[in-house]
């Protein structure tokens, strides 16, 4: 074997020679996303793992996403047909099972529950309705995606349209959970769109909120919330789990884990030994799952699927979903303002799109611009956490009606 031949052979095993143009573009996209996460601070906790997963998945010949290969053979001892694994498959393939089988998103919800204070919602039960109104964005976007079927060459099936609509829930784990079950091939674009828009909430929401409200409405100061007793805080997660899961069994995994996390949080002050479980679920467990989830979701962004006009359509529809959700929340807030005789500031309605706690902070900020002595934050937290429950319920509906 000559020296030149072995050098050529070695060069052919290198990634450069096997790279397709799609993979090249995807590597650039992943670098842009890493820039956005690190320098611009776009949800770095999730966008960075997603971007790096994207980079790993588009490395030619590395095979991180490779499926295991099985061979059917006859077992010499028993004479039965058995599967024998001849290739173990890639690392990301196995980590991705947690997304595919719907394991990671509920585990993240466990941590979210342990970190969330549902007190403002319990203190003002009517604010939960704002969390329902903001889910309107999910369904209008779902219809919008289906309407694109009239455009030739840009069609979305019903499960795909449902997965795009859920971007409007502004809730990462819910969006990933639903998409992994209904349209796993769209997971990359949908996760990127959902998390990017969540980071852009402070830019997307204020113009819509200001356009739909008058200055007098924005100035409304709300009554202080009543204190919530320990008993209420303990009963709340159990009640929500029972009600939601009995009405909508498809939402039980998400709501059940969210509320279990919350129960751990509230019960930790009664039985101090529970503190350990609470700390693990909101801390290390959640961080571990976030790493696995982010990297593997990013790794689904395969160049050939990602670089298509459909991705652009998903990005545009996602923006529509956020905007309509915000508008619906604010308009419902105006309705509640009229019905209560001016006791509700419509600005808290926009927080109903979830995106905890960013959307609530936006309500606070816009309210304070109109009236510097107004503090809407705690009032907005009610619709905000109700939005999480609302989008999980909406996901449950889509899961049971669109799984065709």
């Amino acid at each position: 074997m000559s020296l030149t031949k072995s050098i050529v052979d070695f060069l052919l095993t290198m990634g450069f020679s096997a790279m397709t143009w799609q993979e090249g573009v995807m590597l650039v996209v992943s670098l842009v996303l890493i820039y956005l996460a690190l320098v611009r601070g776009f949800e770095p906790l999730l966008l960075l793992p997603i971007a790096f997963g994207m980079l790993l998945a588009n490395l030619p010949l590395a095979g991180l996403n490779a499926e295991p290969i099985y061979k059917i053979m006859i077992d010499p001892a028993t004479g039965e047909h058995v599967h024998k694994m001849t290739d173990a498959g890639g690392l990301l393939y196995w980590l991705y099972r947690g997304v595919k089988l719907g394991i990671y998103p509920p585990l993240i919800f466990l941590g979210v529950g342990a970190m969330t204070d549902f007190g403002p919602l319990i203190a003002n039960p009517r604010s939960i309705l704002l969390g329902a109104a903001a889910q309107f964005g999910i369904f209008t976007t779902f219809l919008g995606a289906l309407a694109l079927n009239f455009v030739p060459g840009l069609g979305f099936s019903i499960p795909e349209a449902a997965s795009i609509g859920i971007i409007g829930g502004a809730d990462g784990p819910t969006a990933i959970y639903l998409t992994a079950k209904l349209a796993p091939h769209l997971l990359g674009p949908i996760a990127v769109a959902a998390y990017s828009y969540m980071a852009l909430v402070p830019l997307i929401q204020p113009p819509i909120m200001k356009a739909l409200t008058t200055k007098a409405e924005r100035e409304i100061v709300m009554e202080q919330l009543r204190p919530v007793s320990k008993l209420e805080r303990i009963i709340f997660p159990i009640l929500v789990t029972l009600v939601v899961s009995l009405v909508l069994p498809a939402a039980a995994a998400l709501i059940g884990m969210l509320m279990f996390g919350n129960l751990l949080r509230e019960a930790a002050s009664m039985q101090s030994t529970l503190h350990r479980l609470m700390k693990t679920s909101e801390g290390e467990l959640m961080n571990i799952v976030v790493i696995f989830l982010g990297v593997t979701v990013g790794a689904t962004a395969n160049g050939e699927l990602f670089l298509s006009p459909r991705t652009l359509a998903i990005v545009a529809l996602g923006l529509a979903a956020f905007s309509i959700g915000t508008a619906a929340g604010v308009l419902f807030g105006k309705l509640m303002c009229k019905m209560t005789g001016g006791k509700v500031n419509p600005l808290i309605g926009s927080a109903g799109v979830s995106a905890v706690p960013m959307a609530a902070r936006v309500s606070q900020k816009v309210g304070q611009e109109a009236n510097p002595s107004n503090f809407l934050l705690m009032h907005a937290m009610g619709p905000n956490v109700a939005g999480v429950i609302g989008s999980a319920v909406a996901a449950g509906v889509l899961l049971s009606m669109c799984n065709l």
Partner: protein
Amino acid sequence: MTTAPEMLKYGLIVTLVGMGIVFLVLIGLSYMLDGLKLVSKKGNVEKKSEVVELENSKESATIADVSMEDEGELIAAISAALASYMGSNNKLVVKSIRRVEGNTPAWAKVARQEQMLNRL
């Protein structure tokens, strides 16, 4: 269900049912939370107001004088903390504040610090 109008029609049904269920579940929860409020009001027993008298000791004033430059602020902070801990009560009078030297070992202090930082 493959043509665009058929899919859109099904989409409309899903939208109506979906929004209906979302509102139904959340309205239901909202009224149940109202019920929850009644339950907890029954269970709430009014807290007894207690007056705690703080001991007056002679050493205190001198120690505070020596070690604390910003006395006023410190006294205000300690009184406020006491008032909020014991339930705001205008009968609370702070007569003296005395620094107690802790006998906590250094390791316990470190652990305590760690716990507090973790919580934040």
